[in-house]
C-alpha cells in the first residue's frame, strides 16, 4: 500500500464539512473529514449509526438530497473538483467512474425488470456500446463475481435468485463500467453469515483483479479487517483515528477505538473471564456536541482543561509508519496497554437440574397448493419441515444458544416453546411438564409466567401507544398476583433500576426512547414475572456495537442474579461464543451439532459448524482463520435434500451416502453430538478453524513494530 503512494490519488477529500438543513436548523453531519485514496486501495470507514459514515459516501457521489449540502472543503476525483460539477457532469461520472453498492440488495434491484436489462443498461448508457456487446460484458462480469450459471441469472427477475446472489448481481452492476471507485455501504449486513463470508471474499478480490479503489463502510470491525488496507474510525461526525489496518488494530490510540474493541467479543474471551466493557453514555446529538473533544463526556481519560477547550485536530502518531493519525489531546499520555484490564472475571453460574428437555420435537407446516398441477397430481398438501427431530436439554442457570442461518427453524422452535404454535410430534418438557402441544392460551398462569421472551427488533418490541410504566405494570399484575396500584408501581420502579434506566421512564412513551433503552425495557418486561427460562431471539443484533455490549452485559447480570435459564437464539457466533455455555447448531430444521461452547469451537467439528466458524469476522489481526467459503444457496425448506440437509453445500461431501441417507447422530462424549456420515475419528483430525495466538506469541509479535 505504501508503494502506491507515488501514484496520483483517485479521490481526495479535504477538510470536508457536510450539513443537513432541517426545520430545526442546520445539523452538521460530518465535520472536518479528510481522506486520500490511491488506486487499488481499499479504505474502511467504521463507526456506529449516526456517526456520518453514510453521509460521506453520499457526499462523494454528490447525492445528498434536497436538504443536504457541502458546507466547506473539497472533494477531488481524479483531479477534478466534484463540488463544482454540474448535474450533467455528475451523471457522467456516477455509475461509470464511481459506483455505489447499498445495504439491501433487494431494494437496489428493480423487481419488475429482468436482471439482464438492468445490467446491460449500465455500459449502454455510459459507453454507448451495442446491446449485444453489453450482454457479453455483463455475462463476463457475472462470471467474475462467481455467480453459478450466469446465463440463467441474466434471464431471471430479482425475486428468482437468493439474497446473496442478488448482492453479487448488484456488485457486478457496480463493476460493469469498470469504475475507478466503488463505494460499499454495509454490503453484507442484510445477508446470512456464510453468504456474507463469500461476499466479503469477493470484495477483497475485486481490488486485486480490477484494480478498483474501494471505500467500505461498515459497523463491523472484523469485516473491515478482512477487506481493507486502511481504516477510518468515525465518531459523531468526525474521524477520530485513521491508520493502516495493522497499525490501528494492533495499537489503537484513541479511547473511542479502544472502547469499540472492548465492546466486541473476541474469540479469546468468554463472559466469565473477560466481560465486555460497554462505553458509558450515549452518542451526542449533532446539535448537542460538547466543546473540544466530542467523545469527552464518555471518555475515561477526560481531563477538564485539556479535552473541553478548543476543537481537537488530527495529529500524526509519531513512531508509527503507515500514516497513523489520531484526534486526541492525550494520546501520548494514555497507557494503551493498560486500557484493557485483565483478570476482572466473574464466577461462573452454578448450573442446576434440567429445566428444559426437548425430545424428538417435530414441527411441520401445511401448505395448500391450489394450482392445477397440484390438483392433477394429487399433491394438494405439502409440508414445510420447519423442525425435524430436535433433541437437547438445558439446565437451570445455563445459557444455551441456538445458532443457525435464516430459515433454519430456530424461530419456529421458539414459537412452539412459547406456545404460539403447537408441535406436530415429539415433546418439550419444561420443569417436567409436557408443553409442546399446549397453546399459550391453555397454559396455566404459572407456566406462562415462567417462560418469557425477549424480541429482536427494538422498534417493535414495545407498544408505541402505551407508556413504559403501563406496559411493565401489566406483566406484573398478570403474573405477580399483585393488585394494589402502589405495590405494582414500586415493582416497576425496581425493575427500571435493575435495567439501569432512570425512574421517570415510567411516564415515557416508547418513541421517546433509543433502541438500546427500548431493548432494556424489553428485558425488564421479560423478567418482570420472575421466569425460570427466558428466550432471547437475537436481542442485540439490531443494536450498535457499544449499545449491544451494554445490553448483553445487562442480560448476563440479570441472568446471573436470578439464575434464569437463557435460550439465546442468534446467527452471530462471536456473541454466542462469548455468552453461552452450550451451543446447538441448526440447519434446515435439524440439529447438526450440539455440545458445550468449548466443544463446538474445537475439533471435531461438523462440516457446517466449521464453515460457520470460518465466517466469523474477527477484529484481531493476530488471530488466523482457515478460510472455508460455502458454495451455493440454502436449499428451500419446501424441498429439502433427501439425505443430510447440508449435503448440497458440504465441502466434505463424501459421496452418494450423503445425498441419500439421513446421517446418524454420533456421540463424541457426554453431551456433545454430531450428525454426520463422516466418522468421528476423521472429524477429529481436522485442524482448528480459528487459531488464537497464546499470550507469549502475542507479545512477541506486537513489540517489534513499536
Amino acid at each position, binding site marked *: 500500500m505504501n508503494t502506491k503512494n507515488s501514484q496520483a490519488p483517485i479521490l481526495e477529500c479535504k477538510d470536508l464539512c457536510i450539513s443537513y438543513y432541517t426545520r430545526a436548523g442546520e445539523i452538521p453531519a460530518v465535520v472536518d473529514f479528510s481522506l486520500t485514496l490511491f488506486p487499488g486501495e481499499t479504505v474502511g470507514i467504521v463507526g456506529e449509526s449516526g456517526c456520518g459514515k453514510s453521509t460521506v459516501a453520499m457526499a462523494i457521489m454528490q447525492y445528498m438530497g434536497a436538504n443536504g449540502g457541502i458546507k466547506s472543503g473539497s472533494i477531488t476525483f481524479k483531479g477534478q473538483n466534484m463540488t463544482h460539477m454540474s448535474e450533467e457532469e455528475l451523471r457522467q461520472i456516477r455509475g461509470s467512474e464511481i459506483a455505489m453498492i447499498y445495504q439491501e440488495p433487494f431494494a437496489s434491484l428493480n423487481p419488475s425488470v429482468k436482471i439482464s436489462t438492468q445490467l446491460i443498461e449500465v455500459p449502454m448508457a455510459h459507453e454507448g456500446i451495442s446491446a449485444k456487446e453489453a450482454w457479453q460484458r455483463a455475462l463476463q462480469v457475472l462470471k467474475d463475481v462467481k455467480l453459478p450459471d450466469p446465463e440463467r441469472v441474466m434471464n431471471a427477475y430479482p425475486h428468482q435468485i437468493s439474497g446473496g446472489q442478488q448482492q453479487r448481481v448488484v456488485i457486478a452492476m457496480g463493476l460493469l463500467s469498470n469504475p475507478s471507485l466503488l463505494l460499499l455501504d454495509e454490503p453484507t449486513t442484510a445477508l446470512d453469515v456464510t453468504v456474507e463470508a463469500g461476499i466479503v471474499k469477493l470484495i477483497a478480490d475485486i481490488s486485486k483483479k480490477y484494480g478498483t479503489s474501494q471505500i467500505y463502510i461498515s459497523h463491523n470491525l472484523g469485516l473491515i479487517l478482512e477487506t481493507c488496507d486502511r481504516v477510518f474510525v468515525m465518531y459523531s461526525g468526525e474521524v477520530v483515528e485513521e491508520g493502516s489496518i495493522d497499525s490501528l488494530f494492533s495499537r489503537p490510540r484513541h479511547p473511542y477505538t479502544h472502547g469499540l474493541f472492548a465492546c466486541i467479543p473476541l474469540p479469546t474471551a468468554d463472559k466469565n473471564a473477560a466481560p465486555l466493557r460497554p462505553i458509558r453514555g450515549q452518542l451526542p446529538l449533532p446539535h448537542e456536541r460538547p466543546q473540544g473533544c466530542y467523545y469527552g463526556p464518555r471518555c475515561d481519560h477526560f481531563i477538564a482543561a485539556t479535552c473541553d477547550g478548543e476543537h481537537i485536530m488530527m495529529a500524526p502518531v509519531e513512531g508509527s509508519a503507515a500514516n497513523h493519525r489520531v484526534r486526541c489531546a492525550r494520546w501520548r499520555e494514555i497507557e494503551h496497554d493498560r486500557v484493557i484490564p485483565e483478570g476482572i472475571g466473574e464466577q461462573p453460574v452454578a448450573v442446576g437440574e434440567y429445566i428444559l428437555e426437548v425430545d424428538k420435537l417435530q414441527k411441520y407446516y401445511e401448505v395448500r397448493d391450489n394450482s392445477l398441477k397440484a390438483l392433477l397430481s394429487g399433491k394438494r398438501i405439502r409440508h414445510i419441515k420447519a423442525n425435524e427431530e430436535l433433541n437437547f436439554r438445558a439446565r437451570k442457570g445455563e445459557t444455551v444458544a441456538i445458532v443457525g442461518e435464516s430459515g433454519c427453524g430456530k424461530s419456529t422452535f421458539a414459537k412452539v416453546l412459547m406456545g404460539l404454535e403447537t408441535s406436530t410430534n415429539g415433546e418439550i418438557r419444561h420443569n417436567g411438564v409436557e408443553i409442546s402441544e399446549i397453546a399459550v392460551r391453555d397454559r396455566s398462569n404459572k407456566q406462562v409466567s415462567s417462560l418469557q421472551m425477549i424480541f429482536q427488533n427494538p422498534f417493535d418490541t414495545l407498544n408505541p401507544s402505551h407508556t413504559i410504566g403501563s406496559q411493565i405494570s401489566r406483566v406484573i399484575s*398478570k403474573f405477580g398476583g399483585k393488585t394494589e396500584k402502589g405495590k405494582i408501581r414500586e415493582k416497576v420502579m425496581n425493575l427500571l433500576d435493575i435495567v439501569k434506566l432512570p425512574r421517570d421512564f415510567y411516564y415515557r412513551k416508547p418513541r421517546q426512547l433509543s433502541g438500546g433503552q427500548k431493548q432494556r425495557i424489553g428485558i425488564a418486561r421479560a423478567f418482570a414475572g420472575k421466569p425460570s427460562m427466558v428466550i432471547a431471539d437475537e436481542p442485540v443484533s439490531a443494536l450498535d456495537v457499544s449499545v449491544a455490549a451494554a445490553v448483553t452485559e445487562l442480560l448476563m447480570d440479570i441472568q446471573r442474579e436470578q439464575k434464569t435459564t437463557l435460550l439465546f437464539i442468534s446467527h452471530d457466533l462471536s456473541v454466542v461464543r462469548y455468552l453461552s455455555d452450550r451451543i446447538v447448531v441448526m440447519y434446515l430444521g435439524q440439529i447438526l451439532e450440539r455440545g458445550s461452547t468449548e466443544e463446538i469451537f474445537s475439533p471435531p467439528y461438523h462440516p457446517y459448524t466449521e464453515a460457520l466458524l470460518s465466517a466469523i469476522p474477527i477484529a484481531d489481526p493476530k488471530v488466523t482463520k482457515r478460510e472455508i467459503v460455502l458454495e451455493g444457496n440454502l436449499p428451500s425448506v419446501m424441498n429439502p435434500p433427501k439425505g443430510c440437509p447440508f449435503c448440497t453445500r458440504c465441502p466434505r461431501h463424501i459421496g452418494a451416502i450423503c445425498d441419500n441417507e439421513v446421517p446418524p447422530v454420533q456421540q463424541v462424549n457426554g453431551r456433545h453430538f454430531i450428525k454426520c456420515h463422516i466418522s468421528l475419528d476423521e472429524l477429529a483430525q481436522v485442524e482448528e478453524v480459528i487459531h488464537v495466538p497464546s499470550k507469549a506469541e502475542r507479545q512477541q509479535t506486537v513489540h517489534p513494530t513499536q
Partner: protein
Amino acid sequence: MATATQTTITADSYGSAFMRGLKSFALLRESWVGMIGAAIILFWILVALLAPWLAPFEPNASIQPFARPGTVSAAGATFWLGTDHLGRDILSRIMWGTRTVLFYAPLATLVAYTVGILMGLAAGYRGGWIDDVLSRISDIILSFPVLVLYIIIIGVIGASGINIIIAITFASSPGIMRIVRGLVLDLRNRDYVAAAQTRGESDWRIMLVEILPNARGPLIVDACLRLGYVIITIGVLGFLGLGLPPPDPDWGGMVNETRHMAIAFPYMVLAPSFAISSLILGFNLLADGLREIAIRD
C-alpha cells in the same frame, strides 16, 4: 449507559390526558388547511349550540310566505335569507337544522365505526373462516349502489332518526371493516403483539388494547372524511324524502321541499345547500390537515 440514579418523578412534563389532547391540537396549528377546517366546524358547532338565542324566528312558525332575503317582517325583524313557501324563516331553519346534522352525523359515524372496527379486528386478527365470512358479507353489501341500499333499507324500516343511523351503519361499516382489517393484518405481526400473546392475554384485550390504539392515525383521518360523507348522505336522504320526518328543520329536507321552486326562488335552495357544502368542506380540510401532520411525524 444510563446510571441508576433515583430521579424524582416529574409528572408535570407529561401531564393529564386533557393537557395531552390540547398538545395534539396544538400540532394541528402547524397545518393551515387543518386550521381552516377546524374553524369552519367550530363555527357550525357554535351555531348549533346557540341556535335558540341566535335564530331570529321560530324555525317551524309560518310567518310570511315567499319573503325575499332582507325583507322586514311585520314584527320588525329581518328575514336575512328570506322565507320558504310555508313562510318559515330560512336562516332560523338552517340554524336549528345544524343541530340535526351535528347530532345524527357524528352519531351515525360513531356507530358505523364501532361495528366496522369490531368486524375488522375480528377478521384481521383471527383470520380463517371468520375473515372469509365477514369479508364476503362486506363484499355483498359493497356491491350494491349505496343509494339503492338506502332506499331499500329506509323503505323497509321507515324514515326516522334511528333508522337513518341503522342505514348508514349498514352501508358504511363494510368499508371501515376493510380499512381496519388491512391495518390489523400488518399490526398483528408486531413483536409487541407476540409479547402479549406469550403472556397469555385474551384475544379481545390484544385486539382492543394492543392493536387498535396503533391503528388510530389512519382511522381518525378516515373518520373525518367519512363524517363529511355521512353529512352528504343525511342531506341526500332528506332530499329524497327519506330523512327526518317534517316539520323539524333538516338541511336536505329544506332543499327537497323547495326544489320545484328553485328557478323562481333560488335562495330557498341555495342557502341550505351552501350550509351542507361548507360543513363537508370543513371536515375534508380537517382530514387533510390531520393527514399532513400524521405524515410529518
